């Protein structure tokens, strides 16, 4: 018997939905086997990482707060990924966005209220976009690969962060820790449900996917992004400027990462210290692909990845595995989703080796 991959006439819609779900299930299955082989209770670890955060209602707020930045960053990255603009530096744009918001907070002193909050959020978006404009300029002017330049700028952003929190922006009233002064209570984002940590940023993360959905499916801009990604020559034929697309994709990707950074700072952490970078900008790449670059897919995938973050912490205490385990699971998910991509465009056929067997009648 031979196994043959056969190109589908049209990409399979069913497979587009099935493959992300299968990737998560495969990740869980492989996780059980691998941990069992390592002598750790694999079943327990996988249950704690993937299910406990969903079943225990007191974990829901953690999931929501962690999902918000992942969703917001992934929405921006999906636009770039669709247009074949590969922004790998969302982590840096996220950091710069948070720093810009912090700068506004520091400049505002004791002043607070909605105007300061909105200014912080806008500053975050502008900062993220500005950071992303460097790779955009390098790519459109000099043809520099944006994957490398955006990634390298992440490490520059980390240096900027440690310089600011360890130097000019260090909390004068702190105990000489490298951290900014915490925000005033009327500078922090409002909490949506009292008694929880669920802040305004979560609401933004729920609404934005629908805005992006509308943008991508109905607007000329969304059309432009889809054509450039699908057939660059056709885009040029249709009068869409390739460089303009790179700029838009990078600015939106950076802006969203910056927004996420500002919301995380003003909604959750309230101060920036050296531990602020949490890898959301990198994990959002997984969210973007697991969500099949679709805004609503990003919403769902963001929740799944947030679950693994929260579950990783649970498993740390229950089966005593390091927190980094969550990262292994996230990486496996990306691995499976990318590998299973082929089933969207191709179907597998099993061809009996016996010559006499008549081919099935044409169908499908």
């Amino acid at each position, binding site marked *: 018997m031979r196994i043959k991959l056969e190109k589908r*006439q*049209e990409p399979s819609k069913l497979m587009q939905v099935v493959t992300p779900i299968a990737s998560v299930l495969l990740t869980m299955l492989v996780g059980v086997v691998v941990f069992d082989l390592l002598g750790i209770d694999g079943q327990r670890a996988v249950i704690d990482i993937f299910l406990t955060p969903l079943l225990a209602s007191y974990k829901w707020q953690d999931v929501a707060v962690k999902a918000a930045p992942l969703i917001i960053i992934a929405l921006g990255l999906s636009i770039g990924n669709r247009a074949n603009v590969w922004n790998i530096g969302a982590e840096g744009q996220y950091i710069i966005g948070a720093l810009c918001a912090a700068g506004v907070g520091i400049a505002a002193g004791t002043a607070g209220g909605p105007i300061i909050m909105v200014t912080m959020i806008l500053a975050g978006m502008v900062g993220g976009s500005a950071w992303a404009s460097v790779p955009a300029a390098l790519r459109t002017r000099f043809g520099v690969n944006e994957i490398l330049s955006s990634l390298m700028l992440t490490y520059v952003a980390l240096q900027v962060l440690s310089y600011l929190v360890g130097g000019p922006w260090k909390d004068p009233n702190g105990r000489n820790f490298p951290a900014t002064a915490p925000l005033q209570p009327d500078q922090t984002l409002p909490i949506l449900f009292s008694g929880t940590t669920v802040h305004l940023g979560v609401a933004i993360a729920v609404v934005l996917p629908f805005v992006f959905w509308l943008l991508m499916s*109905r607007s000329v801009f969304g059309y432009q992004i889809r*054509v450039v990604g699908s057939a660059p*020559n*056709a885009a040029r*034929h249709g009068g*869409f400027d390739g460089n303009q697309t790179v700029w838009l994709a990078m600015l939106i990707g950076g802006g969203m990462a910056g927004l996420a950074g500002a919301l995380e700072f003003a909604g959750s952490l309230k101060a920036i210290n050296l531990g602020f970078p949490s890898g959301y900008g990198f994990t959002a790449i997984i969210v973007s692909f697991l969500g099949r670059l679709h805004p609503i897919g990003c919403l769902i995938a963001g929740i799944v990845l947030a679950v693994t973050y929260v579950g990783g912490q649970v498993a740390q205490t229950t089966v005593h595995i390091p927190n980094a385990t969550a990262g292994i699971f996230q990486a496996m998910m990306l691995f499976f989703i990318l590998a299973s991509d082929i089933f969207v465009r191709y179907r597998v056929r099993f061809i009996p080796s016996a010559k006499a067997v*008549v081919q099935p009648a*044409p169908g499908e």
Partner: protein
Amino acid sequence: MDSSIAPRLQLTGITKRFPGVLANDSVSFAVLPGEIHALLGENGAGKSTLVKMIYGIMQPDAGEIRWNGQALTIGNPKAARKLGIGMVFQHFSLFEAMTVLENIALGMDAKIHARDLEARIREVMEQYGLKLDPHRTVSTLSVGERQRIEIVRALLLNPKLLIMDEPTSVLTPQEVEQLFVVLRQLASEGCSILYISHKLHEIKALCDTATILRGGKLVDTCDPKVETSRSMAEKMIGAGLKEITKPASRSLGPEKLVVSRLSIPGAGPFGIALKDINFTVRGGEIFGVAGVAGNGQNALLLALSGEVLSGDAEAISIDGAPVGQLQAKSRRLKGLASVPEERNGHAAVPEFSLADNTILTARDRLGMVSAGLIKAGAAKTYAGEVITAFAVKALGPGAMAGSLSGGNLQKYIMGREILQKPAVLVVSQPTWGVDAGAAAAIHQAIVDLAAAGSAVVVISQDLDELLSLCDTLAVINEGRLSRPIEVAGADIEEIGLLMGGIHGEAPTTPTAELELADAH
């Protein structure tokens, strides 16, 4: 070993099925030793599938292949070559950056020392009068010369059957003649030739027997010297051919498209630069650009459509307004529509629906956008209009462009541009890979558009197409355009010489040296 009685190749009841299509339905015919046998049919008739099975690339689902009277299975191309079956493909598999010798060495099944191989190559070329320097780099060769590499490669194996897949589609008339001399010599030495084409006059001139396929079925095996071109064409298409009807008397309108001193540097190391191109097309005129593939046709289309800008605004004008520095989008608003050669991925997005594909080029002219949002309804309606007006076989506006056959997609793309009533239409290879029925419909649409007062530029390698369609034509060679020639009094010899090289040299002279000189 050779039996003079048994056919060289005999096919009996060959059937091949693909998902959704029966590509070959019980095809039977025989090729005799030393016979030049034409395999004739429209695109999609099943010619390629059939020869792929003879060459061992695919296996038939049913039927029998006999080679010199013996039934056998040809498992792969290597086995086919071992039997003495050679094939020259329509699309060459050559490495541009390597020499002729290196390319041939790479394709050999047996390892032969470079010096011995070169001696063998020179011997074969001497024998058949093929001129080619084994040490030339492929990128500097013309298409005709590249084809010679493929022929030499096949001849080195002393084939008993040579399969030629559409060999003349890229050649000048003179190069075609030279090819025929080689093929006739081969046949006289006993080599059978299976010659795939849809050019009827070539088949009449060259072939002893013609097997005609239509829709995967064998329609007839006939003697092309007895048949007329028309009778063979009708067998191929299965219905009476529709002639293009041109309006009897036409008066040309004002100058619509003026190209003056258009020069554009070549893109990339193998890109062709456009050099000082001048021509004028008036309303109602169909202007042809002839030439062998790869002489700047693509660059010319991109320059005219606005996908590549020239620095000079005055280089191109539409209705007297300079547009040389305007982008494709703005040129479209000025009334210039274009159809590039490549349908999938350039003229249309294969993964998008037909409705979404209208937005690509018609969104501004037909008001499909308001406040940055796409009017999906308008796109769908327009797609439906195009489908109806151009008899496109598709499931509807929601069908994916990539799911249409080549001819249907081309009709759709032509319709999408023509129904926008452009002042100027530029099309490249309008009927490339399109079946005869669709080609006739496309030709008629071009003629009708011109009759309605538009200026049309047709860029094509198919000289017959241009001669039947155009009022005026010019030849592009090495990025230079010849002076315009009135088609009514055109001398085909002169056009052929222009296609081979602008200085009127014999086409065997490598014109590529010019290009090299320019590159330095």
